[in-house]
């Protein structure tokens, strides 16, 4: 009989996270002898590109589509059309809004990922008053908002709920700047924040490249010892930076796992016609250099075993 066709749509194919996800899916597909089609938006936030990709995959005969929605809400109508035609749609990494728009979700909760490092930071600082800088993604991006708001929530500050795309700014946040998830821009943002507020003692970053940039700026200012950097992602480079003490803690996610679970589900659907359902948390693990009392964390070595990217 025909090979089952499974489609994987990522936000971009240039972000290492999604590149790894695609590699995971490719490997799983090869192992199970299915045809894997991949596509992506042209840049993060490109919803129209993902809609186009869904349509093209259906045209190519995909019966299962795995997607990391760029825009949780905007993708929903297109997914609905696909599901109406009997396609099983599974969201990877990020949920849709509403959750039920897809058959199943294999994901990390970005809000929770943020919350974990927030709790860690709170505990690390002890009772010291926090002066926080946040290096966010870019205007309007949901993941940027979820991680940012989750971090604040975990830190015990007032913050918008997970459904909001707006970044909260309580008084403790003395500087907010966009890093575009990019190291160079993260560095520039951190430099400017330090200029504005030299006594910043806690830095939240959207991802580890931004954290690396922040570290570089802090080091140049001779402040790398006094300031705590927390981040999200759990890429191998990031975990190494945790081990090296550059980043205090990061929330690790598992793109490979999401992808292979998705492919498995697709194969099962092709063979048996049985769909998977509901939310499967692929887990977030807090990886921290130092253990702080009251917060569960794993050490860098554990993180390195599970990390994605170049080990």
């Amino acid at each position, binding site marked *: 009989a025909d090979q089952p066709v499974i489609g994987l749509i990522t936000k*971009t*194919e*240039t972000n290492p996270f999604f590149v790894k996800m*695609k590699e995971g899916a490719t490997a799983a597909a090869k192992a199970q002898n299915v*045809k*894997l*089609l*991949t*596509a*992506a938006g*042209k*840049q993060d*936030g*490109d*919803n*129209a*590109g993902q*809609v*186009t*990709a869904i*349509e*093209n*995959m259906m*045209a*190519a*005969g995909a019966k299962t589509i795995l997607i990391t929605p*760029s*825009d*949780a*809400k*905007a*993708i*929903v*109508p*297109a997914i609905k059309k696909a599901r109406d035609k009997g396609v099983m749609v599974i969201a990877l990494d990020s949920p849709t*809004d509403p959750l039920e728009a897809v058959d199943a979700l294999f994901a990390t909760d970005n809000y929770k990922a943020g919350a974990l490092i927030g709790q860690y930071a709170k505990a690390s600082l002890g009772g010291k008053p926090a002066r926080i800088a946040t290096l966010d993604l870019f*205007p*309007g*991006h949901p993941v940027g*908002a979820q991680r940012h708001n989750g971090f604040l929530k975990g830190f015990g500050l007032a913050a918008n709920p997970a459904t*909001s*795309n*707006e970044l909260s700014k309580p008084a403790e946040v003395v500087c907010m700047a966009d890093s575009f998830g990019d190291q160079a821009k993260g560095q520039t943002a951190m430099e400017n924040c330090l200029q504005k507020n030299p006594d910043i003692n806690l830095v939240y970053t959207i991802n580890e490249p931004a954290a690396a940039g922040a570290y570089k700026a802090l080091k140049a200012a001779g402040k790398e010892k006094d300031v705590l950097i927390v981040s999200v992602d759990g890429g191998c480079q990031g975990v190494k930076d945790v081990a090296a003490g550059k980043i205090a803690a990061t929330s690790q996610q598992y793109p490979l796992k999401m992808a292979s679970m998705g492919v498995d589900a697709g194969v099962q659907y092709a063979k048996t016609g049985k769909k998977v359902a509901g939310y499967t948390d692929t887990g977030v693990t807090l990886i921290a250099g130092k253990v702080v009392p009251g917060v569960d964390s794993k050490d860098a070595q554990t993180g390195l075993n599970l990390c994605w990217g170049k080990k």
Partner: protein
Amino acid sequence: MLATPTSPNRAERMKDWTRHLPPMAILGPLLALLAASAFFATQADNFLSGQNFSLILQQVMVVGLLAIGQTLIILTAGIDLSCGMVMALGSIVMTKLATEMGLHPLLAMLLGIGATTAFGLLNGLLVTRIKLPPFIVTLGTMNIAFAITQIYSGAQTITDLPEAMTFLGDPIMILGTPVAGGVLVMLALYAMVWFALSHTAPGRHLYAVGNNREAARLTGISTERVLLTVYALAGTFYGIAALLSVARTGVGDPQAGQTENLDSITAVVLGGTSLFGGRGIIVGTLIGALIVGVFRNGLTLMGVSSVYQILITGILVILAVATDQLSHKRA
């Protein structure tokens, strides 16, 4: 020459001077489109079907509509870097008014198109009154439109739209193939603009302004008015594009339009319109948009990953224009 027995030699010389006539101008893009389609038909099983073509049309309808406005502007020797962002603003305005303000969908749609038209007018005023280069003007308004979109929407996608706003995304059966209503709107607009450009006085004036602005002014054409109209009208088309994008995706998306700026220019250029103004045919733009759509669809069906798709698009743009250039070369 004046009425004298011109030497036959002279007369013969003249002949070859005759430039490629309009239909010739889109021959190149058309052949490219057919060649690409033929190639993908052999490479991907599911490519050659009415339904897939209807799909491609549906996928290019937003860029296709933006490219109408872009073509008008490029024909006047301008360029618009802001079109995608202006479209995003329009889609936010119309969806927000229809949902949060509870306006009648039709009114909301009109106001959304009004907003994009106003932005187009702003571009036009800056180009005509302060005489700034269109590249700079639209570089600025691109940022402005993006920022306003983000601020006004609070960066939130707008959902739960009334049915009346999205019906253009619904398929209509034509010859047993489902075709989105928006596609028909796009095709109709292309036909109208083609007619207006080639068969009405304002259309010819637009070409004259792009071809030789000073000459157009001296022959009594109000070049300022032509330019203003073009930019405002382009804004209107961006508004309609916003409508189609809302209909297609079912939401008002503040992140929309970011890649469409360059996409629309690519479509115009692939369609054979000169960036120096005054030369080009609107139908070529539709073909240009389709070429991009066919490649994206075909490459995806072939399972080519998106990085390679970007690579191929880059090569394609240069190749298409180079072929055009080399075939036109006289000497």
